[in-house]
C-alpha cells in the first residue's frame, strides 16, 4: 500500500512513456530540438480538408518545421490504369479529384486522343470548354467557402453551396451525376446539352456576378479577413519554379502562365480567355486570383455559348470499351482549377496502357508548404494550407 496518489487517485491511467510515435513521427522527431512541441495536425483535423496529416514542430505558436505526411487516401490510381482498358479507366478520372473532375477527364481523354490521333468534333470541343469552366467555377466556390471556414467564418461555405447546387443541376443534365462527373468520351463528349442546359447556364452567369458582389461585401472587404491574409505566406516566382507549383499560386506569384493559353488545347485559343494576374503573392493574392478566375470563367462561358456551332458531339468511329492504344508515349496537360493537370501514358500497344502517370497539381503545390510555413504562426500556417486549395484524393491519387 503506497500513499495516496493525488495525480492519479484511481490508478487508471497508463504508465507514462508507453506511447510510441509511428514511423513518421519518429522520423520527424529525430531532427527536432529538445523542448519543442511536436504537433500532429491531422489526419483528422478540421482544416486539413480530408485526411492530410501535417507534422509541425512548434516553438510556442511558431512553426519551426512542417512536414506533410501523405497516403491516407491513396488508391493506386496509376496501377488501376494499367489493369483497365483506357475506356474503362476514364470513369476513374472523376474520382481522382472529385471537385474538378472535368479537368482530369480532359487530361486523360486528351492524352488518349493525342496518342491515337482521334479528331474531336467542333461542337464537342465547345461543350468540353463549357463543362470545364462550369466545373472550375464550382471548384473555386467550394474552395472559397472552405478557405473562409479555415479562417473561422462558418457561414460563407453555405452560400457557396447554393451556387454549387445550381452548377450541379446544370452539369447533371449532361453528365447525369453531381460529383464524380464522367462526361468525356474519346472523341467527343457523352451527351449534347439540351435547351434547358443552355438556358440554365445563361441564367447562372448574371446570377453568379451578383453573388460575387455579395462575396466582396461579406468576405473580401472584411477587415478581419484581409488582415488575416495580407502579407501572409508570400510565394515568389523562384519558390514556384523550384517546387513546380502551378495554377493560381503561380499566377499570384506574378507569372502569366496558364496552360489554356500557353499550350492551347480544345478551342481555348479561339476564346481568348482572360488570365487574371497582377495580385500580391501572399494568401490574399491567391484568394483574389481565384475570385477573379471565377469571373474570367464566366466570361469564357459567355463567349463559348455565343459561338457554339451545331454538329455531332461524338466522332463517328468512337473507341469501343475494348479499344487498344497504339504503341507510343504521350504527355498531355490541361489547366485544372488547382494548376496543371498532366497525364503521361506509355503504351506498348497492348490491351491496357503500359504505364499511366498522373501529374496532380495539388501534389506539387503541397510540397512547397514545408518551406512556406517555416517561421509562421500556427494560424498563418493554416491559412497558407488553405490558400493552396488542396484536394487530398488528388494529392494522394
Amino acid at each position, binding site marked *: 500500500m503506497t500513499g495516496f496518489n*493525488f*495525480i*492519479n*487517485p*484511481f490508478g*487508471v*491511467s*497508463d504508465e*507514462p512513456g*508507453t*506511447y510510441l510515435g509511428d514511423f513518421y513521427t519518429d522520423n520527424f522527431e529525430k531532427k527536432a530540438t529538445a523542448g519543442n*512541441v511536436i*504537433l500532429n495536425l491531422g489526419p483528422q*483535423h*478540421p*482544416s486539413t480538408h480530408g485526411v492530410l496529416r501535417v507534422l509541425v514542430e*512548434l516553438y510556442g*505558436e511558431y512553426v519551426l518545421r512542417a512536414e506533410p505526411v501523405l497516403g491516407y487516401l491513396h488508391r493506386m490510381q496509376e496501377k488501376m490504369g494499367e489493369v483497365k482498358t483506357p475506356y474503362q479507366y476514364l470513369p476513374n478520372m472523376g474520382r481522382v479529384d472529385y471537385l474538378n473532375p472535368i479537368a482530369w477527364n480532359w487530361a486523360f481523354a486528351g492524352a488518349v486522343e493525342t496518342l491515337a490521333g482521334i479528331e474531336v468534333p467542333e461542337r464537342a470541343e465547345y461543350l468540353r470548354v463549357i463543362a470545364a469552366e462550369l466545373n472550375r467555377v464550382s471548384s473555386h466556390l467550394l474552395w472559397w467557402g472552405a478557405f*473562409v*471556414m*479555415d*479562417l*473561422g*467564418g*462558418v*457561414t460563407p461555405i*453555405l*452560400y457557396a453551396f*447554393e451556387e454549387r447546387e445550381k452548377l450541379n443541376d446544370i452539369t447533371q443534365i449532361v453528365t447525369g451525376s453531381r460529383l464524380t462527373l464522367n462526361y468525356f468520351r474519346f472523341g467527343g463528349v457523352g451527351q449534347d446539352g439540351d435547351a434547358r442546359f443552355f438556358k440554365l447556364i445563361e441564367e447562372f452567369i448574371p446570377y453568379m456576378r451578383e453573388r460575387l458582389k455579395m462575396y466582396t461585401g*461579406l*468576405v473580401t472587404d*472584411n477587415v*478581419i*479577413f484581409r*488582415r*488575416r491574409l495580407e502579407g501572409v505566406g508570400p510565394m515568389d516566382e523562384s519558390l514556384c519554379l523550384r517546387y513546380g507549383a502551378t495554377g493560381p499560386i503561380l499566377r499570384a506569384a506574378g507569372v502569366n502562365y496558364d496552360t489554356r493559353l500557353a499550350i492551347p488545347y480544345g478551342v481555348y485559343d479561339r476564346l481568348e480567355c482572360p488570365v487574371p494576374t497582377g495580385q500580391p503573392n501572399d494568401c490574399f493574392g491567391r484568394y483574389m486570383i481565384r475570385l477573379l478566375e471565377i469571373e474570367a470563367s464566366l466570361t469564357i462561358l459567355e463567349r463559348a455559348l455565343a459561338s457554339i456551332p451545331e454538329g455531332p458531339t461524338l466522332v463517328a468511329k468512337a473507341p469501343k470499351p475494348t479499344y487498344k492504344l497504339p504503341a507510343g508515349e504521350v504527355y498531355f496537360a490541361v489547366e485544372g482549377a488547382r494548376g496543371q493537370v498532366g497525364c503521361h501514358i506509355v503504351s506498348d500497344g497492348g490491351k491496357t496502357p503500359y504505364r499511366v502517370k498522373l501529374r496532380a497539381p495539388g501534389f506539387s503545390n503541397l510540397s512547397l508548404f514545408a518551406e512556406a510555413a517555416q517561421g509562421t*504562426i*500556427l*494560424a*498563418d500556417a*493554416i491559412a497558407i494550407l488553405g490558400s493552396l486549395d488542396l484536394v487530398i484524393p488528388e494529392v494522394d491519387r
Partner: protein
Amino acid sequence: MDLSLVTFAQILVAVLAIIGLMVANAVVMVYVERKAAGFIQRRPGPYEVGPWGTIQAICDSMKLLAKQIFVPANVDWVLFFLAPVLAFFPVLLLFLPIPFGPYLTGLAVPDGIVLILAFAGFGVLSNLFAGWASNNKYGLLGAARAVSQSVAYEIPLILALLAIIFQTGSLSLTEIVEAQGSYPWQWNILVQPLAFFIYLVSLVGETNRAPFDLPEAESELTAGFHTEYSGMGFALFFLSEYANMLLVSFVCATFFLGGYKGPFLDGIWWTFIKAYLIMFFIVWIRWTFPRVRFDQLLNINWKWLLPLGLINLWITAIIVKLLP
C-alpha cells in the same frame, strides 16, 4: 452586512433560481443560436425534434448526460475533473448582485461590481486547468491562449465599467440603474458611447466567442482547451459559456442600457429583453466574421482598447470633477 438567517435563505433561493436560469438560458440559447445560424445560412436549423425543433437542445443535453466520460491516458485527474466544475460554479455567484428588476436582486451588496469582476477571474482558471490537465497539445495551446486573452481583455472591460462608476459615483449595480432614466436617451450608452463600444468588444473577447474564440479555435486547435472533454464535462463548459455570455449581457444592460428601466413600465422584462438583444448580437457576429489571429487579438486589446479606455476614463474623470 450581517449574514443573518434571512439573508442566507435569500441567497439560497437566489442560487437555486440562478441555477434554473442558467440551465434554461443554455437550453434556450442553444436553440436560438442554432436557429439563427440556420437562418443566416439559409437552412432551417433544428427542425425535426419537437415542433420546429424546439426540444432539440433538451435532447442534446440528455445525450451529453448519458455519454460516457472519456478520460485520456496520463491526465492529471484532480485538475481534469475540477476544471469543468470550476468553470460552472463561480458563475453562479456572479449573478447574485445583478438587479434583475426593482427590488429583485439575489444579494444587494453595495459593491456588487467588484464581486462580479473578482469572481469572473475563475473562468480563466478553469480553462487553464482543463487545457493543462488533459494531456493534449491542442489543449495546452488553447489554455495558453485562454490565459493571455482573458487577462488582456479584463482590463479594457474594467476600464469601460470604471467610466460609468466614476460617472455614477457608486459600485452598487442597483444605484447605477437608478441613476439612469426610463427612456433610451437617459441611458448611459448615450453618455458613454466609447465605453459601450469598448465593453462590447471586450465582452466578446472575455467570453471567448467568435471572432475572438481563440482558445477553442476549431480550425487551428480542433477544440482548444476542451478537446478531451466529452459528456458531462463538455456540457458544463458549454453551460458556463452561455452563462458567461448571459452575465456579461446583464452587466452590459445594467451599466449602459438602463437595466430594468424602460419605457412604459419598469420591470424585470426590460432587463431580459436588453440582455437577450446583446446575446443575439454576440450570436450574430459569430456567424458573420472570420476569426482574428492571436497576435491581432492582443494588438486590438493593448494597442487600441486599452488606450481608448484610459482616455475615456480620463475625460470622464475630468468632466465629473468639473461638473459635479
